């Protein structure tokens, strides 16, 4: 059966390529390129509850999380919320190079669409689950700067909140200890964020048409984007890291972006992220994981801090990438053109890897190739939906 399935897939890809050729386009695809294109779908991916979070997928928890996401009582000074840096009107980012909480932080606000699909959270992967990542900025003195006790007291005093909390978590917020209460609130925040998802895109329509050999449907995808797609899966080698339906392999890489957060201060990237993860009592090996089997904790058990992790940052999803400028962990690149130029001219002397990393090399794209690649990236945007 497996062999038959593989054969059918090959035939579909071949038909798709033939259809492309039949349109007398400039785009011809190798077998590897066809395979890579098909690997970027189908989309969307089905929802699967997070076993570490008993609130995941619970409508009451999602509603609670949605209200908390916009609730300024989660900040020390009562003036900021999650949405301040993850604004739904800005594709759940803030359009700033680096976000501003109580202070300006070192990193760009990562877009939240499809966040439920992540393996690691944050630019350095300092969290291995979404509820721990949701809790972190509440306590970070540079971001919302609150404490578990402050948040618990404020929310417990609010009209009707205690009843909602009790409905979702089966306990009284006034009698829960501050830290478990904050973890519960973070699990509700995570349940809401799991609903934030990108809709289908022009690329998805093309990819599915390609899979079924539908030349008419394929012809609706702009030729410039097709050329850019070919660069993406071929010469650009982008698909090694920006892999699969969500256009990320969920891991980390050093792509030659500056690693100084400020003069004389280095952002350690993944190296520091692993250290923070392993020190955190909110990781999946800790007491707040609702999955007694800890079935999703293998990554945390096996992750290893390596010297090459210095200067590595998470490979972000490219879905809706055109809507989430500026780019890179420090927001140092303003436009998609800047990003493509970066990879076209990347300074390998800036790479920190000590193990012969050879994946990142200057692409030396022509002006037209760079424009094609940008056009392809623009076709990865779909309507962002979330529980309202």
């Amino acid at each position, binding site marked *: 059966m497996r062999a038959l399935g593989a054969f059918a897939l090959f035939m579909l890809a071949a038909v798709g390529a033939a259809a492309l050729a039949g349109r007398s386009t400039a785009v011809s695809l190798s077998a590897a390129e066809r395979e890579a294109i*098909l*690997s970027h779908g189908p989309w969307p991916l089905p929802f699967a509850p997070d076993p570490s979070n008993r609130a995941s997928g619970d409508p009451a928890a999602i509603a609670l999380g949605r209200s908390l996401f916009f609730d300024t009582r989660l900040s020390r000074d009562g003036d900021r919320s999650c949405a301040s840096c993850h604004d739904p009107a800005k594709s759940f980012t803030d359009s700033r190079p680096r976000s501003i909480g109580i202070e300006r932080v070192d990193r760009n606000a990562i877009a939240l669409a499809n966040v439920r699909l992540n*393996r690691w959270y944050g630019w350095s992967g300092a969290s291995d689950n979404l509820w721990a990542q949701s809790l972190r900025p509440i306590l970070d003195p540079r971001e919302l700067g609150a404490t578990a006790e402050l948040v618990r007291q404020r929310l417990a005093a609010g009209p009707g909140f205690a009843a909602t909390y009790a409905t979702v978590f089966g306990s009284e917020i006034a009698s829960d200890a501050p830290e478990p209460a904050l973890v519960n609130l973070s699990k509700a925040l995570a349940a809401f964020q799991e609903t934030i998802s990108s809709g289908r895109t022009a690329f998805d329509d093309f990819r599915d048409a390609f899979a079924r050999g539908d030349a008419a449907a394929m012809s609706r995808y702009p030729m410039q984007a097709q050329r850019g797609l070919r660069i993406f899966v071929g010469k650009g080698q982008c*698909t090694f890291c920006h*892999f*699969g339906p969500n256009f990320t392999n969920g891991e980390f890489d050093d792509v030659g972006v500056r690693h100084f957060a400020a003069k004389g201060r280095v952002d350690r990237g993944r190296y520091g992220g692993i250290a923070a993860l392993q020190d955190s009592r909110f990781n999946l090996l800790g007491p707040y994981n609702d999955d007694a089997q800890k079935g999703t904790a293998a990554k945390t058990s*096996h992750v290893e801090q390596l010297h090459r992790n210095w200067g590595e940052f998470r490979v972000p999803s490219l879905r809706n990438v055109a809507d989430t400028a500026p780019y890179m962990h420090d927001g140092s690149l303003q436009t998609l053109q800047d990003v493509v130029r970066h990879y076209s001219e990347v300074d390998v002397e800036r790479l920190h*890897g000590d193990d012969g*990393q050879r994946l990142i090399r200057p692409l030396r794209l022509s002006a037209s190739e760079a424009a094609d690649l940008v056009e392809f990236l623009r076709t990865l945007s779909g309507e962002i939906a979330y529980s309202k």
Partner: protein
Amino acid sequence: MRFLTIALFALSAAALAVPSASACRAANEGFVHLASPEAEIAYRLQADQLKVGQFFAVEVVVCRTPGTDAVRAVLVDAQMPAHGHGMNYRPTMTEIEPGHFRVSGLMLHMPGKWRMTFDLLQGDRHIRLTQEMNLKP
């Protein structure tokens, strides 16, 4: 999610696939035999299909080694020679019974050509067998 298949397309110069040894686990149990002039193992990947970014385990049975000392450990690792990097995770080994090991926590995070290495530790001896595989997207 894309399904992926492993194409076991070549062994390293030091290794050579051989027919199943009677002392070893059979191919019909899903084991693949891997041998060099110095040693032979049988291994079985513990995943229905290997996928990019999916954790998997490998079961290793030692079939033949030089001398009489028992193999005390089997270390399994993987590298992408073309990219110059290995895995991001450190596998852990457990001995199921003498000469029979399970190594878990392996994850191949990119499509492409990977080289898996099986290092057998026997007394002071260190024997390496390698297997190349093409992890498709």
